[in-house]
């Protein structure tokens, strides 16, 4: 569904990605793990279109994504969240989620006047959808709160609700569990599994091995900018090479 083939990206001499190849199948929750500096976030930004690779290809459902802007990828169904959550502070929680609903005719300035009834009707349905999403992560009570006032964990859940509002084909989650309380992580896990059942594909970068073990299948291990191996959690956890990548190169 989403594949990176032999992607290379270097920043001033340091090669963050060296011929990295990885494929995310439809309907899976694919985990991406690896020690610090293995290039996980860089790969993520290449898939999301924030960074253009030096060479190699990125394809989404067979179509190449090279040159597509992040908003074009988002509209094509490839949605992402951020490692350090970037909520829109000045907008309320509900407004953050409403902003993400695709195909709002009210996004065009003149239609806000020409077809006011239709815009309002669309907004009502969008609020309905947003409400369901926010209630699942019990943020509905804070719907009118400016997003800047939320706690770290709540901001993460808001970001995920925002991603879900876009009716995505695939969601790229960048360390969803970081800084989130264990209880919230459980809620998060259940949400992801439920959505996978509804056919949404996930790619998750995560350090919390419990989340990876519980949710992800298959798992890709990245080290020094390339894919070391991939497989089920048991295969990956027992693989000597992975151990070395994590615990240090015993020269």
């Amino acid at each position, binding site marked *: 569904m989403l594949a990176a083939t032999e992607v290379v990206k270097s920043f001033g001499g340091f090669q963050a990605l060296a011929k990295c190849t990885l494929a995310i199948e439809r309907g899976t929750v694919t985990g991406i793990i690896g020690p610090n500096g293995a290039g996980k976030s860089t790969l993520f930004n290449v898939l999301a279109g924030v960074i253009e690779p030096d060479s190699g290809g990125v394809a989404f459902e067979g179509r190449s994504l090279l040159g597509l802007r992040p908003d074009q990828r988002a509209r094509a169904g490839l949605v992402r969240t951020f490692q350090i959550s970037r909520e829109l502070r000045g907008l309320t929680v509900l407004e953050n989620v409403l902003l993400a609903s695709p195909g709002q005719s009210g996004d065009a300035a003149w239609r806000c006047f020409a077809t006011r009834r239709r815009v309002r009707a669309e907004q009502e349905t969008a609020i309905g959808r947003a409400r369901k999403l926010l209630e699942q992560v019990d943020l509905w009570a804070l719907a009118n709160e400016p997003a800047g006032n939320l706690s770290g964990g709540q901001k993460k859940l808001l970001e995920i609700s925002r991603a879900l509002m876009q009716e995505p084909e695939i969601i790229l989650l960048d360390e969803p569990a970081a800084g989130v309380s264990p209880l919230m992580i459980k809620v998060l896990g259940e949400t992801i599994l439920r959505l996978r059942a509804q056919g949404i594909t996930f790619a998750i970068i995560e350090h919390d091995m419990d989340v990876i073990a519980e949710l992800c299948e298959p798992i890709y291990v990245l080290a020094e900018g390339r894919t070391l191996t991939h497989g089920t959690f048991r295969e990956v956890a027992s693989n000597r090479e992975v151990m070395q990548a994590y615990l240090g190169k015993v*020269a």
Partner: protein
Amino acid sequence: MSAVLSVAGLHAGYGAGDILKGIDVSLDEGRVLTIIGPNGSGKSTLVKTLAGLLPARQGEVRLAGERVNELSPPKRVRRGLAYVPQEYNVFRNLTVLENLRIAHEFMGGGAGAPLPEEMAALFPELPSRYPALAGNLSGGQRQMLAFACALTVRPKVLMLDEPSAGLSPLLTVEIFRTVKNVNAMGVSVLMVEQNAIEALRISDSCVVLAGGRVRLAAPAAEVLGMKDLQRLYLGDTQQADGQPAGRAAA
């Protein structure tokens, strides 16, 4: 022997929540302490707080017995608490010599060569590259320059944030040998590392951090001996809050 750097009940964090939830750590004079733990455990936050880049919300930080909570980073450095960040740890648009000069002049080095002879011996490659821009150095050379800058004025404590991150195995060994030599000159070292095995080999004591709490504090040799050290990374280190990770059967 007395603790050259002691941290008691430290709470700190960026936004709303606390990442560090009450940390007690102490580094003895002339020793090497390595802090390991999975990502997001608060390792980097701890070092940034000790360097003064992040305010300590609760708890106390003492350097050689003197409370430093209220001191700004420049003052802490001048009192001998040197720090090498993980990334962006050199001034890329300045030459190697200028990097060293700045560290020397502003860390209270006064007159004299930017790099004292005993330190120069540790970094043989640098002098030949003095005119080069630091940004053009390779990863390993940049790390060495960052080390040298922190050592231009003999610090009491040298804090390192994942010095081996993103480096090849060969360079990693060289980095740790340098750390060993620096320690041999009487500089106490506090190191945050992912490379657990290599780092512990040259350390005296070890602290395991997870979920912003100290899970284990033991001599390095003992932690190295733990068979399921990898469990710390791949296993269920994330016990429900409050319960420290069980000490593995020897």
